[in-house]
């Protein structure tokens, strides 16, 4: 995890390999639809580093179909939290309204890539006829970046929780010191022992101590 924090995007081997094979494909028109600005930036940076000059980011999803037609992308990358996925599904239709048929993933037999993408929280739509070899490296990098972003978010979340717990423990410690005349060290030891005996986290014990104190105070 610590490695992730220092280098959250991890220059993974697969990504480096992917970048190499991408050199010939710089003209591919790629559309990224993601409402999370941080994740969008991470993905865009990856695509640009890999040499793709034709990356368009969509931030506003009203009027999405018009934007798709104007950009005429060969690959669309969209996050799974985005309700606009259903708008793209219109493009599967036989209807005359569709200019260019779009299929989901170039090769449906590549189930593991599809599973990995869904697991990472992303989906891709590929224009019909585009070769699997051209798309796979882009998908692999997208999946890697989505995962790295998730790991980063989880790190931040747990750091936030840890900070909150420390504050609660400090408060409980202060209460114990005041009400039982303990030293800071003894108050801490008492909390720790209680947590071990109850098989709970110190933060939880501290929290119940504080709420019990609030109740008794009234």
């Amino acid at each position, binding site marked *: 995890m610590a490695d992730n924090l220092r280098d959250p995007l991890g220059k993974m081997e697969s990504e480096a390999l992917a970048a190499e094979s991408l050199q010939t494909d710089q003209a591919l028109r790629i559309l990224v639809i993601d409402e999370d600005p941080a994740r969008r930036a991470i993905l865009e940076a990856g695509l640009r580093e890999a040499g793709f000059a034709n990356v368009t980011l969509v931030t506003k999803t009203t009027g999405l179909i018009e934007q798709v037609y104007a950009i005429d992308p060969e690959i669309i990358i969209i996050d799974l*939290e985005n309700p606009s996925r259903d708008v*793209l599904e219109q493009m599967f239709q036989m*209807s005359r309204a569709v200019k260019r048929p779009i299929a989901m993933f170039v090769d449906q037999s590549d189930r593991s890539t599809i599973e990995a993408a869904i697991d990472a929280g992303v*989906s891709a739509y590929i224009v019909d006829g585009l070769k699997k070899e051209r798309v796979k490296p882009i998908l692999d990098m997208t999946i890697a970046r989505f995962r790295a972003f998730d790991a980063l978010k989880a790190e931040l979340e747990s750091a936030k929780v840890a900070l909150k717990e420390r504050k609660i423990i400090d408060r409980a410690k202060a209460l114990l010191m005041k009400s039982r005349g303990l030293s800071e060290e003894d108050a801490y030891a008492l909390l720790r022992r209680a947590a071990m005996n109850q098989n709970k986290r110190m933060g939880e014990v501290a929290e119940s101590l504080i709420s019990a104190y609030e109740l008794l105070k009234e």
Partner: protein
Amino acid sequence: MPDDTEDGGLPIIHAGFIPLVDCAPLVVAARKGFDTEQGFSLRLHKEASWANIRDKLEMGIFDCAHLLAPMAIASTLGLGRPPTPVIAPMALNLNGNVIVVSEELFAEMHAADPADTDAGGMRAAWALARVVTARRAAGAIPLTLGMVYPFSCHNYDMRCWLASAGIDPDNDVNLVVIPPPLIADSLAEGRIDGFCVGAPWGRISVEAGQGRIIAAKNHLWPNSPEKVLGVREDWAAKKPDLLIALVCALLKAAAWLEDRGNFVEAAHLLAEPRHIGVAEPMLYDALAGNLVRAKGEAARPNPDFLVFSRYAANFPWLSHAEWMVRQMERWRQIEPDMDPALVARQVYRPDIFRLAAARLGLSAPLSDSKDETLAGPSDIPGSLGPIRLGGGLPFGVPGK
């Protein structure tokens, strides 16, 4: 990823749902203990799009899902993608959608044809047809109307409604997919002039002063199909007992939702952010059939606005599935070389429904199809006595 890990000794079933009032049978089954009563634990997963629901169901991340009825057919046929057989052993509800038009379009319709606009329902399509004709004559841009997904009853209902008044849904208007969370912005920006959507989203736009409800689904086709329980065929074959238990739990949840005395609690459960996350009164009105058509207007009673259990609402009628296949053909989503009866039988599974009904001691219809042209209520024979159906003509045009 789902597995067979047990939850307190019970097998777990993972279900995907979209935040709409008709996901209620799943929420009620999980929260009121109808799942554990039937010997399993139901885990609900809220999703942002129907495409996610389909992918996760097809991939096996979900065991079952709250599904637009035509999606089960589209997955099985592999429309636009490789086929994954999905079956519908029961329906989750009947009715429950509305057609809303923007305040501007409403004013235009009202000016062109006040009587039909005020009457609403099927007649409102005639008022819309006048607007469409006038716009075409004036060289104005065609109207844009939204629905939620290409393979949905919203799409087919909207198309049939338009066509009933002579409007060609493919050429006279621009029909687009609009996800419910984008409705408000799209209306405000004038990107859409109206839409068809499930409760509570129509009411939300009414309360925002953006739109007016001009028809409820049961005004277009009373007691018409909407959502089903979708299950992968291979999962059903692998876990037949668990499937029956699932259908039993959902049938009991649906029956619980019929009881007026439970509406307050149901609205409370659905209002939780992890379920729908919308104010309770709007959810209560959807359950109770209180239809508020315009902001500030008194609610009109529409008791069949959303039907969860009565009228054999949960029975997977082959005649419903056949209608959907014919709609796919009519609107060129499939080539006209399918046998609707064959497709319907593959996807809709009344045989499974009957096994579950028998276990619960409920009367199940003896026939797999029903006459979809009966205007009024009727009694049909059932396994344990006659069953009352609501009836209703599909897109019957009164008057004109």
